[in-house]
């Protein structure tokens, strides 16, 4: 039966199991929008800016593990997606971005709203397509979803000219994808796995560094088995948070610039490091030349190009983390590393970064901890970028995969609100807390309208310090306290929320934090709390940029008044 290009696209989306499209209409995609009502199973969420369509698709993908779909028109619609696509690319989030294009006769003529989006997104997509013929549509869509989700996930863009949406052609759904140039290696090489097992079995100070690859591969049980079998302590990367329960006795937090001192010390002292599904980002490693100086490194990753890219690796294993760990675990001899673990415990006691200190004033760490306490950790936390992100990662304990959703690689301020929209739509049964800074929140504040229009029950906590906090912190620590253009005037967020029809509270008093969070939780529907916190609070510990992981700066002593009553866990 003949169908239009737009119908074929929708048919393919349905067959890929797509349930929601985050989009924004415009001239070039009108034929597609005109077709959408024929496919009621495809829910369309109208965002207020295309960037947020991409972020929401990304948030959805991270919360569910399924491929997120976003849709925009040609020209500015497409360019607005760019930040969101780049964000998904750097954090390996599966996404299919669909853009309209001017009709084929106009391509190359600088027509109205024409832009070469496949050219623009070349370096930030796994692959992209310009569909010049409706007959190619089904093959392209099938391949796009395959590429987005297979191997190391990432975004794929499909650019479709307006007339291709309207072309009629025979709809043939390709039963299988044949891409001779893209065949991810899923199983690790047995020899390398054997070598890795020998290294681990002979280690005295082994350490696992687990990244987002563990979450993507759903290898939680396998990771846990490896850690418990050989009593190997686990630290995660920022994006790996949640892949191993943070309340587990073998969990030692996360490493890197704002990671826990004991995690970083463990990295620097370990004799064997098992790096699993992570990519040795510079924020994680600190100065690369002094990273893990005593360790032999086993690196398990599905992307061969990540191995040896940033740090030297002794045992490379290319494969899907779950598959590799299943084979590896069989060769692991049960062991106890009492001395090593007690050393780590001692460091943990000496560097209690996760204790909220006693203060009169309202500090952001306290806010995060109270959200953790009130929700009992049963929430998906979606953060912005900067101080709010680091505190949210530090002072909330994540026991479940995909419970922290955060922009890591690109560090995109403004991700929090649209990311939370995607997460809530993907997992509507979960409590979703959007933890925003007052800076990032103002970047995508317009999505409050999307939340209301879609009736999304999202709780929003603004950590409002009146500064671009992380930049201000760097100015304080590294630029002689010269706060150049980081003082940030903000609107009355409670009134803003009110204008959107969202219930809201402002909290300035520490004593009212818990009750405000409880009120938000009890409230049915979205709720915003503007926490006006200490303006010059810093994130500690911090490893200065370019320094080794051992050169951390901790909170100055006079500020570190911790009480005995406050337990770390």
């Amino acid at each position, binding site marked *: 039966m003949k169908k239009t290009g737009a119908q074929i696209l929708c048919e393919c989306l349905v067959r890929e199991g797509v349930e929601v499209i985050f989009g924004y209409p415009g001239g070039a995609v009108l034929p597609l929008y005109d077709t959408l009502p024929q496919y009621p199973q495809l829910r369309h969420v109208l965002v207020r800016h295309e960037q947020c369509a991409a972020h929401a698709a990304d948030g959805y993908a991270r919360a569910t593990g399924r491929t997120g779909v976003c849709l925009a028109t040609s020209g500015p619609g497409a360019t607005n997606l760019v930040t969101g696509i780049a964000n998904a690319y750097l954090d390996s989030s599966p996404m299919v971005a669909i853009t309209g294009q001017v009709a084929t006769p106009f391509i190359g003529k600088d027509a109205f709203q024409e832009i070469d989006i496949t050219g623009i997104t070349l370096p930030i997509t796994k*692959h992209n397509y310009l569909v010049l013929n409706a007959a190619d549509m089904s093959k392209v869509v099938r391949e796009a979803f395959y590429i987005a989700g297979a191997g190391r996930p990432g975004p794929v863009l499909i650019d479709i000219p307006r007339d291709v949406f309207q072309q009629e052609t025979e709809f043939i759904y390709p039963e299988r994808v044949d891409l001779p*140039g893209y065949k991810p290696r899923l199983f690790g090489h047995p020899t390398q796995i054997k070598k890795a097992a020998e290294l681990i079995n002979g280690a005295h100070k082994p350490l696992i560094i687990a990244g987002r690859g563990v979450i993507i591969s759903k290898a939680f049980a396998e990771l846990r088995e490896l850690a418990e079998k050989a009593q190997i302590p686990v630290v995660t990367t920022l994006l790996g948070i949640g892949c191993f329960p943070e309340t587990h006795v073998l969990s030692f937090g996360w490493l890197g610039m704002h990671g826990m001192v004991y995690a970083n010390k463990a990295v620097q002292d370990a004799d064997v490091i098992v790096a699993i599904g992570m990519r040795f980002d510079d924020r994680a490693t600190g100065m690369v030349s002094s990273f893990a100086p005593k360790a032999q490194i086993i690196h398990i990753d599905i992307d061969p190009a990540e191995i040896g890219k940033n740090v030297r690796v002794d045992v490379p294993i290319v494969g899907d983390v779950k598959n590799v760990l299943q084979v590896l675990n069989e060769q692991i001899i049960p062991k106890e590393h009492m001395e090593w673990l007690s050393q780590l415990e001692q460091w943990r006691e000496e560097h209690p970064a996760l204790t909220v200190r006693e203060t009169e004033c309202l500090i952001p760490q306290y806010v995060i901890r109270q959200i953790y306490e009130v929700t009992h950790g049963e929430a998906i936390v979606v953060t912005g970028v900067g101080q709010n992100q680091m505190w949210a990662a530090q002072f909330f304990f994540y026991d479940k995969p995909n419970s922290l959703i955060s922009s890591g690689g690109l560090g995109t301020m403004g991700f929090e609100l649209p990311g939370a929209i995607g997460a809530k739509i993907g997992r509507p049964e979960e409590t979703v807390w959007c933890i925003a800074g007052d800076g990032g929140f103002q970047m995508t504040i317009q999505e409050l309208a999307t939340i209301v229009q879609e009736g999304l029950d999202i709780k929003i906590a603004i950590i409002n310090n009146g500064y671009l906090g992380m930049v201000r912190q760097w100015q304080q620590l590294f630029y002689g306290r010269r706060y150049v253009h980081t003082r940030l005037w903000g609107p009355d967020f409670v009134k803003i929320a009110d204008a959107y029809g969202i219930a809201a509270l402002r909290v300035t008093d520490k004593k009212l934090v818990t009750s405000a969070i409880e009120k938000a939780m009890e409230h049915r529907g979205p709720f915003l709390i503007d926490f006006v916190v200490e303006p010059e609070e810093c994130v500690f510990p911090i490893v200065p940029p370019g320094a080794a992981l051992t050169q951390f700066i901790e909170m100055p002593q006079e500020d570190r008044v911790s009480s005995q009553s406050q337990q770390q866990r």
Partner: protein
Amino acid sequence: MKTTKHTLVALVEDKPGVLNRIASLFRRRNFNIESIAVGQSEQSGLSRMTIVVDGDDAKIEQVRKQLDKVVEVIKIMDITDEESVARELALIKVRATPSTRGEIIQIVDIFRANIVDVAVDSLIVEVTGDEDKVDSLIELLRGFGIRELTRTGRIALTRGSAGPLLVEEPKEVKVLRQPLKPPREETESPPDW
């Protein structure tokens, strides 16, 4: 780390934008292309690219792996250490007066190059060979005054019957009606120049 010139050979799908994808990758990853040559391969729908890139071993390994991730790249190999034949073609327009023409022709003969165009005051010399040979000829001709110069960049094939890049055996073998010419006696590998 010691940097050396490496020759990468890639079989890529013959689709619009592939060269752009690869060139963009080099720029984005801060790799330096010395030369890149693209043309048809033995299989329809596939092009063969010869890329010369300068860098230490770790960097070349990154280049290879990153290129391998491009969906349209079917296969890529570093043939630097393989037995291979590498050639380059250059066209050199050199100033030639009646008094220098004879000398130029002599040099061209020694290099087994060809003169492919003669004008009143210039010649176009065509030379094929490895880079050293082309470089040497250019250096020699420079004294006469080079007006225009163009080089193709290196193309290369590994020696032996089947290249390591062969994707799959062709399913149908065409029967040649014409009698095959007797294979030429390949005694030694041909001299490089």
